[in-house]
């Protein structure tokens, strides 16, 4: 399940922010925000995609680097949101 989420996010980021890049160069732990791959406007688009695709609501306070700097963190954040109380 979490692997599938990671793959969907990876594909989205590759298409939107790294056109032409090989999937293998975007690792689960590649920094996205702190490296400059995704800027503040890009983050808004990524969150918009995630909210629509995974049917969750991301609050402003949740959109920091602790949840949104690496694919692995984004995926576990989505999983947590999908299973309230888990």
């Amino acid at each position: 399940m979490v692997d599938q989420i990671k793959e969907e996010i990876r594909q989205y980021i590759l298409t939107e922010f790294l056109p032409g890049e090989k999937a293998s160069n975007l690792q689960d732990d590649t920094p996205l925000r702190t490296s400059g791959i995704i800027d503040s406007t890009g983050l808004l688009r990524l969150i918009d995609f995630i909210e629509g695709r995974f049917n969750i609501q991301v609050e402003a306070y949740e959109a920091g680097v602790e949840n949104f700097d690496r694919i692995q963190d984004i995926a576990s954040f989505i999983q947590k949101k999908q299973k309230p109380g888990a």
Partner: protein
Amino acid sequence: MIETSAASLCTYLESSAQRFGDRVAVVDPDGSSLTYRELNERSDRVAGFLTARGLQPGDRVGLVQPKGIPGVCAIFGILKARGAYVPVDSTAPPQRIRSILDNCRVRAVFVDLRCADVAAGIETVVVTGTPAGPAWQSLPQGAIAWEKALKHAPGGAEFASRHPDDVAYILYTSGSTGIPKGVTLSQRNALSFVDWCSSVFSPDEHDRFSSHAPFHFDLSILDLYLPAKHGGTLYLISEEVGKNPAKVASFIASNRLTVWYSTPSVLSLLAEFGDLKKYDFSHLRLVLFAGEVFPVKHMRSITRQWPSPTYFNLYGPTETNVCTYALIPTPISDDRTQPYPIGWPCSHCSALVVDDNREPVPVGEEGLLYISGPSVFVGYWGRPEESAGCCFERDGSRWYNTGDVVKQDTSNGFIYVGRRDRMVKRRGYRIELGDIESALYRHNQIREAAVVAIPDADAGVKILAYVTTADDARPSIVDLKVFCGKALPAYMSPDAFLFQDSLPRTSTGKVDYQKLANAIPPSNR
């Protein structure tokens, strides 16, 4: 020459401190605030401190810190000491910050503790953003804590010595060779613009103004000085809140702002992601935007969600500040696709549309827009040839070449057409594409780089970097993105990288940018 209402921008503050001493002048992002009396007194102390440290009229003083009350006190203090302030993006790469401070040889700098290293070796270093308590021991060697500077006796330059021709501030913009260039503006330049704003926007002491743009961006001139002149209140928006449309929307509503000023990009994001229906915006009476073309699609969206304010499109490069303006009639019809005009010259400016021989073109024909008037800048710091090259004399006036191609429409004023050089605007920031190329050439695997910009319906403009590598081992795109993240401000990082075996050249051996722009793969359009 049009007379200005004061000799210095700091006179606005002093006069409001007399008339509206107990009214709130400025609200910090953390919610704390200063009245006009307090802001006036604190800036007097900053002026006294700087003068005691030997600051002479005309000396430059850097500001490298996140937006906050200390920055506003420092700016007015520097002006009271007849210094010129140089605001620099504190989030820019340290090398870039330092090159700016060195370029105009600042004698003093107000710097945030987190980036205090960039100020090493500068004569006077004042550190802001120190943790509460006596943290002075942890400051860099020789640096002075902001709290200590504020304890200095009030002082500054003689009131009578203030002159409208004094340099007030220098704003650095992207330079085509990779070195930022300092647009140098006098008191008169800013005062004439602020006086024009007074006449058109009729602000008063009950207005609550946004400060969304950072101080190194020319939109901050209206933000800082129009409220100060009329006794209004300035609400400083932190960078963190400013980038988050949901937080910006809540900020505008909860502070009951009456005047909003930002780039169109910010308004587009507000319309799209701000969840505006959640809030009451009935206090908002004026929405001003400047810095780039506002796509009609997004303009329609924001004006529908905020139907009551009056909207103005303000146009002008940093070199002249706002020089033409247009009222945007609302509502905007569904079938409109044409961008709105940049309108007619402001009353303190004159405009001329000329051909390549600098001869005026007939109404309706395209030409380069030249501007004259008291708001036309002094020059580029330390670049006399470039300063002279962008202006010419005609009928006893100095005319500045904006580099923008426009045409005049008899009923709507000027219509923006585009540019002939390699400067583009993204999120209101000027970007010289050569500046990005210079950064890419510093990557050790890149042999050649050519950067082109293409229009984009959503982002306004997309920046594509064509690169060739020294050997077959190509860096990954992730690596190039990360490299640009370190070498350039975030808004300058290319959207896409395209590897080439070689770059197309013209018959004279120059990079053929036209060929590159025409050859952009559909996936990147």
